[in-house]
């Protein structure tokens, strides 16, 4: 009996030693775009929420260009913009619409800490103008993240989502 117990202990020890430690794999950072209503009528509104998830390096500022179809959806100016909780509202935000492109820059202020983890960058309010389908996209080339010293943060594995609003 002692003999078998010894074997069992050795086997458990060997199995224990052989077991690799499981290190959590860093989750892939994502930029997610969701709309509260994907089907709206002319004159009705839909809110696009742009969210970041699984951000490692603290982000201090973001600039991006969002494309949509301004013949289908209308977006005017900063009144259609709400800062999210990711960078907070104590920011300088600039949002400008130009021919189906929304130029957006949001920056925290010197002395503040960058943001990491997950959270909402901003909410953008669109109104249905005429019937049709508008895609909402952010091209990787037009998306920049900065750290607190203004250095660009490279995020090559960032998954960028998209959204769509149909106006009936």
């Amino acid at each position, binding site marked *: 009996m002692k003999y078998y117990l010894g074997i069992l202990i050795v086997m458990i020890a060997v199995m224990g030693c052989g077991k690799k430690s499981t290190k959590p794999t860093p989750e892939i950072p994502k930029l997610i775009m969701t709309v509260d209503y994907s089907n709206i009528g002319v004159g009705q509104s839909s809110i696009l929420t742009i969210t970041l998830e699984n951000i490692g390096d603290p982000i201090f500022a973001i600039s991006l260009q969002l494309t949509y179809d301004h013949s289908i959806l209308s977006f005017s100016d900063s009144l259609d913009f709400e*800062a999210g909780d990711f960078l907070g*509202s*104590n920011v300088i935000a600039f949002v*400008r619409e130009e021919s189906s492109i929304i130029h957006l820059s949001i*920056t925290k*202020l*010197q002395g503040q800490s960058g943001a990491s983890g997950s959270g909402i960058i901003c909410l953008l309010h669109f109104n249905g103008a005429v019937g049709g389908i508008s895609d909402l996209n952010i091209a990787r080339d037009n998306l920049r993240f900065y750290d607190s010293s203004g250095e660009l943060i490279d995020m090559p594995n960032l998954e960028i989502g998209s959204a769509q609003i149909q106006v009936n």
Partner: protein
Amino acid sequence: MGRATIIILTLFLFGAASGQQLAINEFLSQNDTTVADQNGEYNDWIELYNYGATPISLANYHLSDKSDNLAKWTFPDIVIDSGVFLIVWADEDTTQAGLHANFKLSVTGEAIYLSSPQLNIIDHIVFGPQSSDISAGRFPDGTGAFKRMYPSFGVPNDGSEIIVPDPGAEIYGDTRVHTFRLHFNIENWADTLKHYFEDLGKEYYPVTVTFDDTLVIGSVGVRYKGNSSYAQSRNTPKKPFKLKFDKYQTEQTLLGLHFVNLHNCINDPSFMREAISYHIARSILPAPRTAYANLYVDSTLIGFYVMAEQVDPTFLGGQFATNENNLYKAGNDGANMEYKGSHRSDYESDYSLKTNENDNDWSRFIRMIYKLNHTPDNVFTDTMSLYLDLDYCIRLLAFNMVLSNFDSYTGSGRNYYLYDDQIGGNFKIIPWDLNESFGVFTNGWDVIAQDAVNLSNLDNRPLANRILSNDSLQLVYLNYISQMISGPASYDSVSAMVGRLRLVIEEYVQADNNKLYDYQHFIDNIENDVTIGMGKVIPGMKAFSQARNANLSLQSTYLRIYPGDTDNNGVVNALDILPIGIFFLIEGHARAGAKIFWLGQRTPSWDTPAATYADANGDGVIDENDIVAIGVNWGNIHSTTAQSNEINPVDIEYLRPYMSNLQTIYKNLSGDSEPVKQIKALLQTILDLKPAVPSEFVLSQNYPNPFNLETNINFSLDKDRRISIAIYDITGKLITRLIANQSFSSGSHNIRYDASNISSGIYFYRLSSEEESIIHRMVVVK
């Protein structure tokens, strides 16, 4: 190696007292045994001398070792009588009785300033490295030039100057040409040297040397030398040589020199690169001297060589207060000064220790490298000065940039020494191997147009990176470049040196049948680029100098952008939104290597210089992305000597054309932050600002004036009026009526006048109403 050494005494200015016959007469910066103060301490001292006829009150006079803090130490209310010598101890011990300044003197050299109560400099001296118990004093007292001397504490100087033994003095000199004859005891000496060099680890072979056909020295070690210079000339008779005079006979030297290097001018058809480059380097740095030499084996001429002074204890003794400390040489594979760990073995492949090999103590070196790589930015300059002489490093980087000497730390990461100058308190950098200066070694860069600051390899050059990413140090660096291209490395200076050397060496070059390039290459390369083997282009000495200096001069006109300070008024604040509005969506060239962190970044001006500053992120377009730089740098300040472009927010006339842009910014700006509130308030003020109803009948000066085609005429009415505006020539003849008895409401008005149909000259414009009229003059220039 115990030789006490006195080194270069660099006295830039012997100040004549301006009105006051008071002078810094003598100083001692390393007092070990001469005179002690009342506490028995051997401290540095400064001697003043009143060489005038009347007493001088020193109350509130100052002594300092810093030009930017002349009032560092203030004299008490004392008087120095005529003909009296007054001692001030420089010992940082102001609690002692007597005169004790709150600074010490650096044995490696610094400055002393004597200033009046109004901070006018009465006398000052900038001095180089000093030696223990050797002072520097004026002779005649008060007015003469400084000489190295045995201290004469508080008494007149006797004028006897200490002559420092200089082992190289009889050998080196830019235009000296020597003769070395090697006498081997074997026939196949060339193969033997090759075997000793390649197979036996650069081993020496014994030889007898005759110097200048007069001095015969036996048992001298000789070997080939070099890395790429040897490899590239391996199959030619003219390889580089090294002579070691004490290899077999301890204490044997050539007139005090232990080594002689004979360089074969590989990649330098002009034969001048090393001589001229070291000459320029010596104007700002400790650097080897050169001479020329014909090298013979018995009576056979091997070739005409450049002699470059060995960086060894003999050299160090001539440059620093002691030559006894560690000397490191950067390895041929590059030594970028990156911290690689705390063990000697982490660095031995990159550097070689050239002195004190038996002790083999690398601890101070490793600590210096660690500090270079890990000291926080905000204390970098002060901290590093304890470990590394940043000023020397900056000078070397500037030198490398001016001469496009990129086979150096700047480019390849090699060809330099680091000497642990413990008396001076930190490591000193020394240049080496300059045969590929003047743009021969390109490092893949444009040797004429390479930007002095934006270097592609900075991530791998911590020394250069930390200097160039520090605003203050970068400015010092750029100033050194400016000084060099207008001084020792100016085109005129280089041309003069080239001419002088040619007169001396041309006959020797012509007679050198083993030279690596032909005589025509030599002649051509003095002026212009030549192409040697493998299509390699060697820049002409004068052509390079002219083009490189012109480019660096142009670079000196670059604007210095602090991202976010878009009006360059020295602070990032709400006003910085205005240039973004004014130049919104205007495009220009992008800023090379642009960053938006708080660092002055150089860039050529756009057509509109003010717009250059507004492109805060440097991407070549002024838009919302530039606002990020305002947020990142909000509240940051900098000092600038460049023009401020701050816009007066109540200058409604100036802002009027940009109202639409400002409106766009106003309505698109969002956020609850203080900057947004301030910017919105500012824009609200501007956008709501209406010209007040004027209280007077006013005709403003036209603008622009003088003008070519069109000009603006502004006028204001205190009430509704019927008015006329007419243009007259200088004889009073009516040219045209712009407004003829028309009704205008009270307020400000603007009309434009098209002068395309009149010729150059002086004209008048007249505003008139029923009650009054005003006339102004305008000038048309075509």
